[in-house]
């Protein structure tokens, strides 16, 4: 299995002088292609900073980052934008749908950004939404959709341009437990593919079952990794096996 994301010694500082804060402290992380990886940990542990760096929205202060085989340091700012446009999909905590666009139009936005004409892009988005069970809501505005429906629209938007890496920030936090579970079921079914990696930041332990690998973070570091047996790479020596059910392989980082 090839590596989708490789982080080595990633450090991130915010602020200047006395107000300087270290959000990430030499973090190492590998996410394989085809994996649904979850980043979990308490608030302020650096999860959001990490996915922002992986997504190319922030630059690391130190360390090496390789995403989909490309070193971020090798890309100019403009190349980073085009790389992101082509290869990344996003699912945000608050959905961040454009309130004045219909569901189908919202889904088509990444295609607009990528340079596709409006009408065929919306047609394509409509077909995708139809497949997600929202065929009857194509012309609904986000305000006319439930939270679960909005998140499904957001998922469709993240996938419409066939990205190779999808980054999700707390995709279920704005949803009730049942809806959140349904959304994750759908997400896992639709998004997980051998040629795509997914990173999900979450606090929601009820959706951990969907992960292939869970990385626990604390104070800017990855402290522990749990991996489903057979879902990812063989661990190096030192990995422990203690989980009784799905997460059979655990190691301290």
């Amino acid at each position, binding site marked *: 299995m090839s590596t989708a994301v490789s982080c080595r010694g990633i450090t991130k500082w915010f602020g200047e002088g006395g107000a300087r804060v270290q959000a990430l402290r030499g973090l190492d992380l590998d996410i394989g292609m085809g994996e649904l990886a979850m980043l979990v940990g308490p608030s302020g542990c650096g999860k959001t900073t990490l996915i922002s760096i992986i997504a190319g929205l922030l630059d690391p202060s130190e360390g090496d980052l390789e995403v989909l085989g490309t070193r971020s340091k090798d890309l100019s700012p403009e190349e980073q934008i085009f790389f992101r446009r082509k290869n990344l999909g*996003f699912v945000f905590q608050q959905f961040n749908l*454009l309130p*004045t666009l219909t569901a189908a139009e919202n889904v088509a936005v990444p295609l607009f950004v990528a340079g596709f*004409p409006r009408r065929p892009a919306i047609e394509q988005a409509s077909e995708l939404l139809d497949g997600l069970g929202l065929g009857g809501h194509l012309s609904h505005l986000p305000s006319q959709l439930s939270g679960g429906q909005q998140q499904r629209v957001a998922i469709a938007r993240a996938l419409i341009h066939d990205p190779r890496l999808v980054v999700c920030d707390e995709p279920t936090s704005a949803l009730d437990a049942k809806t959140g579970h349904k959304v994750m079921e759908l997400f896992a079914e639709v998004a997980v593919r051998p040629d795509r990696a997914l990173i999900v930041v979450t606090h929601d332990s009820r959706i951990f079952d969907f992960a292939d690998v869970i990385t626990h973070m604390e104070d800017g570091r990855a402290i522990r990794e749990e991996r489903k047996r057979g879902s990812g790479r063989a661990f190096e020596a030192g990995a422990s096996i203690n989980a009784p059910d799905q997460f059979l392989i655990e190691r301290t980082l």
Partner: protein
Amino acid sequence: MNSISSVELSHPIKTEGRRICGRSPQKSKTWSSAMNWVAMTMLTGDRAKYIGLIFAISFSSFLITQQASIFAGLMNRTRSQILDVTDADVWVMDPATQYVDEVYALKDSDLGRVRGVPGVKWAVPFFKGQPRAKAPDGKFRVAILLGLDDGSLTGAPEPRRMILGNIESLRDPDAVLIDLAGYHFFFPGQPLVAGKTLEMNDHRAKIVGIVDASPPFTTFPVLYTRYSQALNYVGRERALLSFILVKAAPAVSKEELTQRIQAATGLKAATSREFGWMTIVYYLIHTGIPINFGLTVGIAMIVGTVVAGQTFYLFTLENLKQFGALKAMGTTNRRLVGMILLQALVVGAVGYAIGMGLAAVFFIVARTEATRAIVLLWQVMAGTGVVVLFIVMVASLLSIRKVLVLEPAMVFRG
């Protein structure tokens, strides 16, 4: 799940191959148009803010246009009597003359001196005074009396401006032409007929024609008569030669001729255009008119800029998450700036169009004899367009700055 699979199978999304639905992505023009459409939808989707923005720009452009047009119309009125003389090129006057309404009479001999200047085709006397005219029913008013050269009637209104009678009738004894507004003042509600009389300086003045004269700044009635007859209508003064009207000989420019006359006679000479502007500048400097109108125009600009700017900024702030999401998805700063500028320009164009429409309606509705010649000028419309462009650009600057410094990573912060 089956439905998803079927979608993926039947409609593969192949962005890596840069194809979708069998079509290739188009060049930046299409990209722009799709994103421009998104920008327009964002703008018009929030109706309240959109209408607020349009109102601010409409209000500003209406107020600026209306006030500037009234101002320009008033200023233009100050040179009405100059503009109405179309058959002369140059006005000769006392060297101390500042504007058309205050004159110091020349000596009769000056006429001969001017005629002797090389390049003068002809030169004729022209009187401008302000006698008091009285109607048979006792109604009186100060009038602007223009005395035309007896022989040539130079300085008479153009024939097309005659509403009743003809210019040649001025050669009759006691004949005067009166402007329409003056006629309505002295004979309100009465039909337009020749033969009515006025009295000036105890002399009878018989109205032989009615003329559509340009409205004077002072709104006084305008009367035309022969130069020799004008002497009877004003109090006796030693000299009555207000101006000398001069026609340039062929191949001599007006500007050149004014210089020659000034050099040869020591009198002031100005082309009609120059004299008109002298008069306007006098009123600009010596009255509070430009300050009053300028204040209103300035306030309209400030109100328009502040209201539009604030509303636009709030609009951008409320959409900041969306702009952040677009940025995260790979929209460049240049494109986002383009979207904001497009929104600003559309707001400006729509607001400007409504403002101009309102101004046009105002000038149609408010048109009376007293306000005639105060019209919506294309120059004012063009100027207002530039001002509105300035307003929307300033209004969008803050928004552009906000979006430029926006970190796309903010979309991950709840």
